[in-house]
C-alpha cells in the first residue's frame, strides 16, 4: 500500500458545540488523535466526556464545528465537509460496531453482512461470497443461514464485526462493543478486532468503559472534558 494510504485516521483540533447561546454545550474542545492502519486504540473517559460525540463526527453522522479530519488519503473535514456524498463515505470507508449488534432482523446472517457490498453495487453472488469469507474468518460460518434472533450475543457481535469489515473500510469505529458480553467473550471480540486490523490494515477505535479489555490496548486516548490525552496501554498479550 502507498504511504499516502498509511495515514489511517488523523484528527486535529476537532471541536463540536451542541446548540447555541446560553444553552450551548462544548462537547469537544480541540481533540487531536491519530490511529495508524492495522492499529487498535482504546478511547476511554467518564460519562459525558464526549466519546460518542467524537465517534459520530468521525462517522460523518454529525457535523463538527471546527478542525480537520483525514481518513486514509482523503481529507474529509477541514472546518467544513470536504466530501459531497457522506452516505457513500460511510458505506465505503467506515465500519461501525455498536454496543448492541443492531443486525437487520429480517435478513439472515449472510445477507446482513452481504447487504453493504450490495448497497455499493456489488452483485448478490460476489457480495455473499465476500460475506461468507468473513464469517469463516470470524468463526460463525456455521450459522450463515440463521436469522439474527437465533444467535447468541457473542455470535451476533461477530456478525456485526463481519458487517463492519466487509467493504474493507480503512476505519472501524466501535462503541462499547463488549458491553453485553462476559469477560471471555469480550476478550475474544478484542482478539478478533486486533486480528482483523492486522489482516486488513484497518485502523480501529474502540470506545469502552470495560475494565476487562482496557489492559489489552497498546495505546489509549483518554478523553476528559472535551480534550484527549494520549497514554500508553498495558498491551496485555491476547493469545
Amino acid at each position: 500500500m502507498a504511504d499516502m494510504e498509511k495515514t489511517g485516521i488523523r484528527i486535529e483540533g476537532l471541536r463540536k458545540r451542541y446548540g447555541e447561546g446560553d444553552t450551548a454545550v462544548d462537547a469537544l474542545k480541540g481533540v487531536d488523535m491519530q490511529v495508524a492502519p492495522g492499529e487498535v486504540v482504546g478511547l476511554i473517559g467518564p460519562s459525558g466526556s464526549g466519546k460518542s460525540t467524537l465517534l459520530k463526527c468521525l462517522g460523518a453522522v454529525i457535523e463538527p464545528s471546527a478542525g480537520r479530519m483525514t481518513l486514509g488519503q482523503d481529507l474529509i473535514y477541514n472546518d467544513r465537509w470536504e466530501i459531497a456524498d457522506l452516505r457513500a463515505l460511510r458505506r465505503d470507508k467506515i465500519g461501525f460496531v455498536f454496543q448492541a449488534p443492531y443486525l437487520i432482523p429480517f435478513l439472515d446472517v449472510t445477507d446482513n453482512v452481504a447487504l453493504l457490498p450490495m448497497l455499493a453495487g456489488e452483485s448478490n453472488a460476489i457480495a455473499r461470497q465476500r460475506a461468507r469469507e468473513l464469517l469463516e474468518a470470524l468463526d460463525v460460518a456455521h450459522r450463515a443461514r440463521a436469522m439474527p434472533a437465533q444467535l447468541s450475543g457473542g455470535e451476533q457481535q461477530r456478525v456485526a464485526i463481519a458487517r463492519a469489515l466487509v467493504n474493507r473500510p480503512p476505519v472501524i469505529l466501535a462503541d462499547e462493543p463488549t458491553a453485553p458480553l462476559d469477560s471471555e467473550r469480550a476478550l475474544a471480540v478484542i482478539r478478533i478486532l486486533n486480528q482483523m486490523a492486522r489482516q486488513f490494515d484497518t485502523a480501529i477505535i474502540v470506545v469502552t468503559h470495560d475494565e476487562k479489555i482496557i489492559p489489552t490496548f497498546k495505546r489509549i486516548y483518554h478523553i476528559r472534558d472535551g480534550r484527549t490525552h494520549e497514554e500508553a496501554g498495558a498491551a496485555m498479550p491476547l493469545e
Partner: protein
Amino acid sequence: MISLAGRDILHAWGKFVFTGVGLGLLIGVTLTMAGVYRGMVDDAKVLLDNSGADLWVVQQDTLGPYAEASSLYDDTWRGILSMAGVARAANVTYLTMQVRRGERDVRAMVVGVVGGEPGLPGQPGFLVAGRHLSRSHYEAVADLASGFRLGDRIQIRRHHYTVVGLTRRMVSSGGDPMIFIPLKDAQAAQFLKDNDAIVRQRARTAANPAFSTPNVLDAVLASQSSNPYVNAVLVQIEAGRDPEQVAEPIRRWKRLTVYTRAQMEEILIGKLIATSSKQIGMFLVILAIVSAAIVAFIIYTLTLGKIREIAVLKLIGTRNRTIAGMIMQQAVGLGLIGFVVGKIAATFWAPFFPKYVLLETGDALRGFVAVVVICILASVLAIRAALKVDPAEAIGG
C-alpha cells in the same frame, strides 16, 4: 440487490397476512358494492332486452311504464299496428305487488301479456321448463327467483293461477322476479276492488238520479267494473327500419309518447337507478378512505417498529430512495394480498345476495389500480417518518 421489503414481509408474514386478510374483506365489500351497481344496470338492460320490444309507447308526457305510471286504452295497439314500419304491437301491464306462495308472500312484478301468439313483445323470451301461456285465464309463467315450481298455485289478489312455465333472469328494474299472467287477468287484478267496496260503489251509483234509467245504470255499472287500460304498448319494428323514424309518426299522429331502446335505457339507468348509484358511489368513497386509513396506519406502525433498523440502514449508507422504496413496496404488498383476498371473497359471496351482483373484470382492474394508488399514498406518512430518522440514533449516546 435483494428486496428488503420482500424479506421483511417474509419475516413478519403472519402480521402481513392477517392485516392483508382484514383489508381484503374490506376490498371484497368494495368490489361487491360495485357489483351491486353493475347488477342494477344489468337488470335494467335485461328487462329491456327480454321485453322483446324496439319501441315503448306510453301515455303522453310520462316516463312510463317503468319509471312512472302510464296508462293507455287497451285498443290503442290496433292503431299503432297499422303505422308504417311496425311489425308487431302488444299490450302490456306491469304491477309490482306481493303474491302469495303458500303461507308466505314474495315480492314480484306481475306482468300482463297477450298470450297465444309466441314471439309477441312482452312475453318471456325463453323458458327453462314448462310451456308458454296458452289459455286466456288463470295460468302463470314465473321467474325461477320467485321460488315457484311447475304446478304450484299462485294467489294474486282473489284469484289462483297455476304455474305452467318457468323462466330465468326476468326481473324488474328493482330486481323483483317477474310473474307473467294473461293480460285480461292482469287488467282485472290492477283494477280489482274488494267486495265491500264494489257493493258501496254500486249503491252510490244507483243513488245518482242521473243514472235512473235501468239501461243506463247497467251500462255505467259494467264500465265501472272493467278496466280498459294497459300501461304500455310494446312495438317490434320491421327489420332494417330506423326506430326513431318509426317512432316519430306515432308521436305525431297518435299523440302518445314513444321511447326507443336507447331512450328507455337512459330513463332506467339515468333516472330510475340514479339515486341508488349515487348511494353506492358514496359507499365506495367511504370504503376507499377507510381502506387508505387502515393501510396508512398499519404501514406507519410497522415502520415505527423498525426505526432502529432504519437508522442502522442509513448509517451503513443505504439511500433514502431505497428505504422509501422498501416501505412503499410493503404497502403495495399489503394491498396485493388484500386485493387477492377481496376478489376471492367477493366472488364467493356474490351469489348469496338476494339481488343480482355482477362482478365485472373491468371493475376488478379499476379496483386493483385504486388499491395500488391508495397504498402508495398511504405509505407517504410512514416514509416521511422513516426519512426523518437520524443515522446518529444508531450510534446512541
